[in-house]
């Protein structure tokens, strides 16, 4: 018990509070002008919007993948199931250089897209691609267990009462799976807001255009602007904590729903 508390204080609580207190010690004027400067605001907007688009895409793709993996039997299913975890296990930097190379105008996919005059590299859409990769397993891995522990009786009784497949899905299955889906999507969203390694290679990091908030912190640090970095980080941290609170709320709601 003592070890747990000491460990958490040393590794988590003390360092995090340094950032929070540091931000409070800053001149309020300087703090506000830093976080509301157009370049920083643009980076927040970009981080949030790309994370949101990726999360929504993952809600659909992740759900369908979980559904397919749980309910269908086909060759290669077990391999796919195992590979869902790859984005967890693969270092983000490796993912980053992979996507940057794949989607570059001379890359495997980039070539094809270039013919259609679509460019993903150095564009927000490229960031979204990287964030989809990062967030994907969160959705699959939260929906999958709920889906596989679903009692067949629920569907069977719905069908015996005359509901068709679609009605059964929409009225019985979806409401049951929704809390888990929401948890997974929120996790993916929260993770995507702070993601750095996989994004910077494909983003091109153009100020105002493809500069994400974590990179903003990095840039300020490189210029030895510690206060500026803290200010940007503090706001990002606030957003993350809000996400955690939302997540907690969802989980509590989920528990209540199952009681």
């Amino acid at each position, binding site marked *: 018990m003592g070890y747990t508390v000491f460990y958490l204080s040393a*590794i988590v609580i003390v360092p995090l509070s340094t950032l929070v207190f540091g931000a409070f010690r800053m001149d309020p004027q300087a703090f506000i002008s830093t976080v509301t400067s157009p370049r920083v605001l643009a980076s927040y907007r970009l981080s949030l919007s790309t994370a949101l688009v990726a999360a929504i895409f993952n809600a659909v793709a992740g759900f369908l993948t979980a559904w397919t993996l749980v309910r*269908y039997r086909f060759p290669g299913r077990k391999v796919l199931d195992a590979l869902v975890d*790859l984005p967890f296990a693969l270092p983000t930097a*490796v993912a980053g250089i992979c996507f940057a*190379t794949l989607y570059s105008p001379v890359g495997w996919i980039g070539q094809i897209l270039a013919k259609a005059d679509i460019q993903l590299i150095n564009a927000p859409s490229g960031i979204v691609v990287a964030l*989809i990769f990062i967030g994907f397993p969160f959705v699959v891995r939260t929906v999958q267990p709920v889906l596989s522990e679903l009692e067949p009786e629920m569907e069977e009784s719905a069908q015996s009462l005359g509901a068709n497949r679609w009605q059964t899905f929409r009225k019985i299955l979806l409401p049951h799976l929704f809390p888990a889906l929401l948890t997974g999507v929120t996790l993916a969203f929260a993770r995507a807001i702070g993601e*750095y390694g996989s994004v910077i290679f494909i983003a091109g990091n153009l100020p105002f255009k493809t500069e994400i908030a*974590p990179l903003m912190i990095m840039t300020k640090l490189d210029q030895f602007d510690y206060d500026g970095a803290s200010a940007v980080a503090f706001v990002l941290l606030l957003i993350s904590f809000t996400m955690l609170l939302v997540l907690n709320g969802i989980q509590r709601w989920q528990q209540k729903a199952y009681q």
Partner: protein
Amino acid sequence: MQTNHTQEALIITNPNRNDHPAVQLILILLTFLFFAGFIFLPLGLVFAQAFQKGTALYLEAIRDPIAISAVKLTLLTAAIVVPLNAVFGVTAAWAITKFSFRGKTLLISLLDLPFAVSPVIAGLIFVLLAGSRTSLGSWLGDHGIKIIFSTPGIVIATLFVTFPFIARELIPLMESQGREEEEAAITLGAKGWQTFRIITLPNIRWGLMYGMILCTARSIGEFGAVSVVSGHIRGMTNTIPLHVEILYSEYNYTASFAVASILVFLALATIAVKALVEKRVHNQ
């Protein structure tokens, strides 16, 4: 696990529960397409790029002294981080599942933290805490200890990013096992340590092993946090992912992907072990 078996049987035996074959086919194809674009293509690319200019160049990139020192630093970091997190993970999971105490909810919430906090912030907080500009940092500097832009900083930042992995693996496992076995051991006269060693530890060993492997993979692959605290000193404070980045930004793609391929192997090994562990648990 029992339920899973009956479910599999029911999927096959109850046609009403299965979707139309056409729907199934479309969804399966979509899944494969998604995996092709997001998983198989990147994996294939790494090896295609790495071996683009032949095996000799691949080996040269890996045998490069700077690459080797990056590997050494990465392994050293993992060797420190994983045992510390294992002890933390076991004690935290033990406390959370077998006892009730004040602040338990807070502890559980903290375990979600590294998922939500940007790795860049994870690095930044340690720069703010122990950088040369802070009082703690300068005090440490006076005593000849350097944390930021050196190995200790990399270790601590990695600790922050990976601390909940093992605990999160163990908590659901220990919760599902309940505390009856431990209580039985106590009524038979076993001391706390004996109970833990003979009863609890064997029950959780697979979960613990998987958690440690996941933690190893993450500590080896951590990029953002380490990038902030390392200072990028070549051959001194470079980890494998940082080395990949440097090579890439120098347009040395072949070498970059060659080194990256090591990390891909590690990631695939992690996944394989996970599948194995799950099969083990499933069979029991």
